[in-house]
């Protein structure tokens, strides 16, 4: 980051990931899923994290929330939420934070929702746990939240069970659940990839306006560069557990610099994008540093 930018940036990031390393200790050997990832999300901003299968996107989300499934483990680095390093908190402290200060929106809403409880009950449970509301107030908050995510007839729909909802509706309920305690940071992991395009656009518009209303910062994990271009402020490109490029969205889409970014964007848009002809793999030479090529636009050097 340039000196000027450092001076302009707010003192406290909403979320700051620094030199994060996560490994999976399998019977066949150690798999390094994250190799020193650093990111910064400013309050009220949306950072798009793009990458292909196996880049480490979901592992990053899990590492930040400290829910990496075994045999995986965060081995180094920090994930700091408004000044507090989540990696150093006790399980109890962390449980109080999850859902209230930082929440995750996941794809496949049907797997996320309890099939035996009405959606109103599930939302009310979250409200009771995090907002310490009593039963009636929690129920009212649940209905209010369903209205906010534009579920028609929310009072009646609160009694519906997950199987009675369409995919788009269920996804909106999951968003309502993530946002009910007004978390200061949300992480969404490919949360709209299973939806139809018109529903996806509605759900994204809605998520964005709610985040804006709540002043919440967001890490939007996706492999869809269209989502990044249309909804995010900044973008970071993840490849094999390493960030190769990070920039303001306009700067990135106007002139992607890293050969991998150029290849990814050209493939996605079915037309050549960026200036350099992309050389061949591998793109992940370990020793190379990030270099600033334009204000706030960082690119890992290419061998």
């Amino acid at each position, binding site marked *: 980051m340039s000196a000027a930018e450092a001076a302009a940036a707010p003192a406290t990031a909403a979320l700051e990931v620094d030199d994060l390393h996560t490994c999976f200790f399998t019977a066949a050997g150690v798999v390094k899923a994250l190799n020193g990832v650093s990111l910064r999300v400013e309050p009220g901003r949306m950072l798009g994290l793009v990458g292909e*299968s196996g880049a480490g996107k979901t592992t990053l989300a899990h590492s930040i929330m400290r829910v990496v499934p075994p045999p995986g483990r965060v081995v180094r680095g920090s994930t700091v939420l408004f000044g507090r390093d989540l990696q150093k908190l006790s399980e109890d402290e962390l449980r109080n934070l999850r859902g209230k200060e930082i929440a995750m929106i996941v794809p496949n809403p049907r797997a996320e929702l309890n099939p035996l409880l009405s959606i109103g009950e599930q939302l009310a449970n979250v409200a009771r746990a995090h907002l310490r509301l009593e039963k009636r107030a929690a129920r009212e908050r649940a209905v209010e939240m369903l209205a906010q995510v534009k579920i028609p007839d929310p009072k009646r729909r609160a009694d519906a069970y997950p199987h009675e909802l369409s995919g788009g509706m269920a996804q909106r309920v999951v968003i309502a659940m993530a946002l009910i305690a007004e978390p200061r940071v949300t992480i969404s992991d490919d949360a709209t990839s299973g939806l*139809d*395009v018109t529903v*996806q*656009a509605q759900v994204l518009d809605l998520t964005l306006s709610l985040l804006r209303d709540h002043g919440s910062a967001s890490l939007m994990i996706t492999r869809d560069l*269209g989502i990044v*271009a249309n909804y995010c402020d900044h973008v970071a490109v993840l490849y094999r557990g390493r960030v190769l490029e990070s920039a303001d969205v306009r700067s990135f889409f106007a002139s992607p610099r890293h050969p991998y970014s150029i290849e990814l964007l*050209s*493939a996605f848009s079915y037309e050549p*994008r960026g200036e350099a002809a992309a050389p061949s793999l591998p793109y992940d030479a370990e020793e190379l540093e990030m270099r600033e090529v334009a204000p706030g636009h960082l690119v890992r050097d290419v061998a």
Partner: protein
Amino acid sequence: MSPEGGNGTAPVLEVVDLVKHYPIAHSRAFVAAVNGVSFTIGKGETLGLVGESGSGKSTVARCVLNLTALTRGRILFDGRDISRLGAAEARALRRRIQLVFQEPFDSLNPRMTIGSAIAEPLVVRKVEKAERRRRVAELRDLVHLPESVLDLYPHEISGGLQQRVGIARAIATNPTLLVLDEPTSALDPRARRQIIDLLIELQRELEMSYLFITHDLNTLRHISHRIAVMYLGLIVEEGPTQAIFEEQRHPYTRALLSSVLYPDPETRRARFELRGEIPSPIDLPLGCYLASRCPLVVDECRAGIPPLLAIGDGRTSACIRHELVPNAREAETAA
């Protein structure tokens, strides 16, 4: 609709007034999946069939592939009605109309090597061994698979390579028509692009026709010569891809295309949103199926299902007010 194929010869596939209803158990009701669909595909042409969940696009594919009986209508392949064939004839036909699946891994036998998987359709056709070996090498070459993968198993290769295997299997019997049902939806952007480029190349070399089914409009725009837009089992608009992307003549098409997220922050565009929910295919409204959600609706729209009519430039639309669509404003509330 143009009665001729893409290059002026007779169409390879002609679907006429296709209807497919699924009965509901213990009831007189039925799911009206496809409600009268007609289209043609010419030789060497790609028709993109686009629509959202419940539009009936996959049901159309199943009917074309002879995997399910039609309720009404006809399907002509090379001018011959194939909708009511006997078992032997249907089997013979399968060689000429082939399917590429969405999930390449799920479509491959995990215990069969890649080489055997590519040879399998030839074994089924009783091609003798030497000829089989020659053909496998030829197919491997056509889909640009390295020779080294032939002895590997599906889980040992990437999704992109798996889909190349799926395509090699599909073209093994020299089909005239490929039905591609979301063939790239499970792939990452770079692999998707490579598969699409391969399909375009194969189409040129082998003069195959494609029925390409997807909800990925960005990809459809790149590969399709023409697109047909489906809503609740009907085609609501059809025409050359470029023309439809430039200007939509049906409110549903406009809503659909305004939801496409282009990878360019400078082209964030105004959304054209339809209010309310899609009606149930068990209880379809009278008249235009979009009427309850449409900002242009007038009484006449509810009088009967508007037919798909030619509107010039090789295009068709099922909207009686199609000329108003490009400048229509969103409705404030559902009509």
